[in-house]
């Protein structure tokens, strides 16, 4: 009897073979990360959830083409980012005249702690000022722990570009957050 958890590779192999349960387990494992990435891409929690759901359907349709020898996470995140881009295009078509009050509005819940609320606002603003590719490179690298080469594959740019994007994004975040952002 096995007493170790099923690996992503095992689940991916089963999902490729048509197992809906294995696919569901994989999706559950990677959804929290996917949700964070979608939020970073769209800067809107509701749109982000829609994008994750769209990605889930796309991933199942494409699972036959997935190589189970490769990590599932980056493959799924790439689908999530594509879904986010599609959603943004659709939303733009619908909201051509609607200008948001704040580009950084993420519909976050009211905070009791004023400092935390201020930090949240500052982070929203800082993230919103970053060009999308830099924002994604920063989140994928510093928040999600992917290496430059993996991010390069996900974003479809050279690894050197990712390195540069992360550097510039960090500098912009540091400038935008000031003393709120940490120890400098």
């Amino acid at each position: 009897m096995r007493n170790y958890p099923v690996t992503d590779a095992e689940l991916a192999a089963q999902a490729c073979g048509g197992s809906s349960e294995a696919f569901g387990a994989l999706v559950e494992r990677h959804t929290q990360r996917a949700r964070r990435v979608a939020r970073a891409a769209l800067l809107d929690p509701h749109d982000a959830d829609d994008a994750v759901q769209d990605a889930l359907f796309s991933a199942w349709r494409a699972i036959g083409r997935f190589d189970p020898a490769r990590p599932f996470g980056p493959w799924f995140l790439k689908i999530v980012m594509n879904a986010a881009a599609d959603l943004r295009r659709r939303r733009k078509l619908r909201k051509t005249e609607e200008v948001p009050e704040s580009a950084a509005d993420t519909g976050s819940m009211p905070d009791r702690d004023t400092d935390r609320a201020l930090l949240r606002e500052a982070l929203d603003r800082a993230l919103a000022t970053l060009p999308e590719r830099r924002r994604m490179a920063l989140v994928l690298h510093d928040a999600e722990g992917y290496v430059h080469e993996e991010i390069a594959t996900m974003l479809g740019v050279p690894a050197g570009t990712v390195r540069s994007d992360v550097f510039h994004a960090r500098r912009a975040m540091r400038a935008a957050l000031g003393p709120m952002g940490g120890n400098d």
Partner: protein
Amino acid sequence: MTELSEFTSGRDEELGALLRAHLSAPDDVVFAARMRIAAVAAANETAWRSVARWTLPGFAAAAVVLAVLGATLGGATPEPAARTAAGSAAGSLVELASDTSPAGSVALLAVMAY
């Protein structure tokens, strides 16, 4: 936040933690569980549709072939009323088979089982 040069490949752990916390939501675990259910449902529905798309017309065709073979090998000329009933049944089967919705598929399988 850690001061890093452009050529450093390490992570800024502090900024990373800040971003992770900021982009996470209190209901992340519940959302993930919901997505699992949605994923399984989507996968099962797709699989069922695929089965329905390719199998049911096959069943219908087989039923029609069996009906024709039965009439031919039986040797007897069916009565007009029986012929009409057989034609009508075959038509219904084809109609059911072309309905790829789960309800239509279930109905056809019920007919086949009967």
